[in-house]
């Protein structure tokens, strides 16, 4: 299969990676300014993975995401105003302010939710894939998870389910080398992608700092899944330049060196891709500047919208737990 990226698509990939990078940088600023509460996990450095993967998807494909999910959501088409509104806890947010960073979802875009529990989305992607298969639709379900996830029991169970039932699923491991402070080498003895063998599933490892490599591998896996060829596993080697969560910048953790971070920064996916497009003459520095400026504008506007968005009504705190409520449920905290 010869997979070509059109110039327009290539520029769009750049734009989306840049949007994610700048979105995350804004999140950090807003967290520090106490405009965003809770715990936020930025994906700065990893942008090529969600963009490469989601560029290979159709709108009606679905995906499950992780605690480090902003990039996945943007890449799958999430609108930044609704994302910022969600992160600021507003009623106009994607989840009406109920979810926050770790749960952003837009089912209409096939975003089945970020998830705060490592690998929790994997079996859900299998369930969705089963529905597509049993309805005879050629849709695909993708599940993102980190290197830390591959040691979880649920990884194993979900990979096996997908394999034995030949589900149209694609499993994307974002191997950013660490689970919080724990280096992947200390908790896994084999190259991660070889785990796929043990389910009879195709598995490969790609350079997660190269959006084209991620796209190409995913595209192949997605086509195979659509054609009834079953699931695939793709490990993307990547790195987060920033801490596990926003707060880490104020902590004295020493699980990795500045040199290591610098080495990965030199392979930056966004710079690298821009360089290639410009080098190949497909694009110019001016065009890039225009895109960059548009990204800034988009984010500025989104933040402005979010800041003015209304908060949820306090009295609505019992809403949305159940599709159907009964008298006295959900139970309130006091019964005076």
């Amino acid at each position: 299969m010869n997979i070509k990226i059109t110039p327009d698509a290539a520029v769009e990939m750049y734009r989306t990676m840049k949007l994610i990078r700048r979105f995350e940088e804004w999140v950090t600023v807003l967290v520090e300014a106490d405009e965003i509460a809770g715990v936020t996990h930025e994906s700065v450095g990893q942008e090529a993975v969600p963009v490469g993967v989601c560029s290979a998807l159709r709108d009606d494909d679905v995906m499950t995401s992780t605690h480090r999910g902003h990039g996945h959501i943007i890449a799958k088409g999430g609108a930044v105003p609704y994302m910022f509104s969600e992160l600021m806890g507003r009623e106009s947010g994607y989840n009406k302010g109920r979810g926050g960073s770790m749960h952003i979802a837009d089912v209409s875009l096939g975003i089945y939710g970020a998830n705060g529990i490592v690998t929790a989305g994997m079996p859900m992607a299998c369930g969705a894939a089963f529905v597509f298969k049993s309805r005879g639709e050629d849709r695909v379900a993708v599940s993102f998870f980190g290197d830390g996830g591959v040691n979880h029991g649920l990884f194993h169970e979900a990979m096996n389910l997908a394999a034995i039932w030949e589900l149209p699923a694609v499993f994307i491991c974002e191997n950013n080398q660490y689970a919080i402070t724990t280096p992947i080498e200390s908790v896994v003895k084999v190259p991660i992608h070889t785990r796929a063998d043990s389910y009879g599933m195709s598995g490969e490892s790609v350079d997660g700092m190269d959006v084209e490599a991620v796209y190409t591998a995913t595209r192949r896996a997605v086509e195979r899944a659509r054609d009834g060829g079953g699931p695939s596993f793709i490990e993307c080697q990547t790195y987060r330049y920033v801490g596990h969560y926003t707060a880490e910048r104020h902590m004295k953790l020493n699980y990795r060196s500045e040199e290591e971070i610098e080495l990965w920064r030199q392979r930056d996916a966004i710079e690298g891709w821009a360089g290639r497009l410009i080098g190949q003459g497909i694009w110019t520095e001016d065009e890039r500047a225009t895109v960059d400026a548009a990204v800034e504008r988009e984010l500025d506007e989104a933040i402005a919208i979010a800041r003015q968005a209304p908060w949820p009504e306090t009295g609505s705190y019992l809403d949305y737990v159940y599709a159907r409520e009964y008298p006295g449920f959900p139970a309130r905290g006091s019964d005076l």
Partner: protein
Amino acid sequence: MRRLRYLQAMNEAYHQEMERDEEIFILGEDIRGNLRGETYGLLDRFGPNRVLDTPISEAAFVGFGTGAAMAGMRPIVQFQIATLIYLAFDQLVNNAAKMRLMMGGQVNIPVTYTVMATGARNGLAGQHADNPYPFFLHAGIKTICPSNAYDAKGLLISAIRENDPVGYFAPAGCLSQRGEVPEAPYAIPLGQGQIKREGTDVTVIAVGQMVGEALKVAESMSSEGISVQVWDPRTLLPLDKEGVCSAVAKTGRAVIYDDANRTCGFAAELSSLLVERVYDELVSPIKRVTRADVPIAFSAPLEQAALPSQVGLANAIRSICG
């Protein structure tokens, strides 16, 4: 009218609902093999795409159900034995049960969990004899525990039609009991308890297989001149709070007869609820007769001693009706 066993009533509900709505499918361990009877004939009738035998992967098949529900289908997820819910506990209480709120109402999760042979007896021992519904209640998951064949069918149909996760606990001691069961599909609404026997001195609130025992005790107490009312909640969440309050207000006394662990169990919830709601109508303390907080030992005399007993219930009644 026809008399069916509880398991047959469940089987009929499965058939009729899967017939009615082809978005419904069932999955779990040895469903096709039909070990107990409740899944009899499903494979033949609905085929392998709607009747799935899973690997021993409880956490994954619960999450699978959640994902299928988000994608628009209506899974029935069966637990072969009740304690298997522990293996999927995160997927149940931290995912399926919370998904709707966390997403701001974007999706429904219409999944029915049929939890088979809860509260098993006769030497099933430590790991197979729990009655784990209080865990579901504490997590806010809708929970049903039908005490007879009629309710088993009508409540299973309602559970399957509900657009939220519902745990359906089928008590081991009820599964082979027979009762009158109409053939046509019928739905018993959630949240409606039932007075199974009228009485004036004390209301016994009994759950699942305790209902039958409570009725026996009620009969025998009448010879002592104590008139015992028996109330069956049928659904534990939503609970028929009005129903239980008016039943207890009428008698002024209440004993809760429940085969789950005592501490933080359903009996504790009911007792504290009644104190909040009908304190002024009470003429005596509310008593709980429950399982002791011990793993169920294998040996028969120890198992007996740990379980709530008819003698224990009678004593509790006497202690407040004296």
